[in-house]
């Protein structure tokens, strides 16, 4: 099955990021394709490489980066939402890209499921 994920909250402040990640991980483990994680609203803040949490805590941006590199999951931040919140190519992790809402529509169309995590 092909699955798209929509993530609407930023890292750490809400559990949404963690839930989305755990879900993606479990879906991949069960043999599904996680096509893309689309970041909207404050969700765009998930992919700044300046994130620097305490050493004994998870690094949420690095985790998305690894998910892209290991499993080909596209990590996409909405451009309009990113601009409002100061997320630009300058600070983006390697595994993520900035794109428009048309891409989200494509994701909604081409996947069997679109599941949302947020607040």
């Amino acid at each position, binding site marked *: 099955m092909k699955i798209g994920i929509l993530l609407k909250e930023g890292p750490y402040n809400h559990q949404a990021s963690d839930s989305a990640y*755990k879900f993606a991980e*479990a879906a991949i483990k*069960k043999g*599904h394709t996680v096509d893309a994680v689309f970041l909207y609203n404050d969700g765009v803040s998930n992919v700044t490489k300046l994130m620097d949490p305490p050493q004994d805590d998870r690094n949420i941006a690095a985790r998305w980066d690894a998910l892209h590199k290991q499993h080909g999951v596209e990590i996409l931040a909405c451009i309009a939402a990113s601009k409002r919140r100061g997320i630009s190519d300058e600070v983006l992790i390697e595994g993520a890209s900035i794109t428009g809402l048309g891409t989200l529509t494509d994701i909604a169309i081409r996947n069997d499921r679109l599941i949302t995590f947020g*607040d």
Partner: protein
Amino acid sequence: MLHTINKSPFASDSLETCRRFLQPGDSVLFIEDGVYAVQAGNKFASLIETIQKNNSVLALHPDLGARGITVVADGVRVVDYEGFVELVEEHQVNSWL
């Protein structure tokens, strides 16, 4: 359809609102702070019982454990992330935010 609810029913109207839109046969999965709804013996016990007449009610084990909820209301099925994925295989998803 699989409805997910991620907010505490004490703090938010998500559960009370979602329940009005449930169709017979839909499943309801509580995740994140939503899992407080199914802690045994709280004031939502009778609502959860009512919902179970037409819908299956589930809760995510990792979120229950994180919150120290060891006993859930009668009839509530506890699943892990693998079970969550299985529910998504079976249903389209409606995440009540």
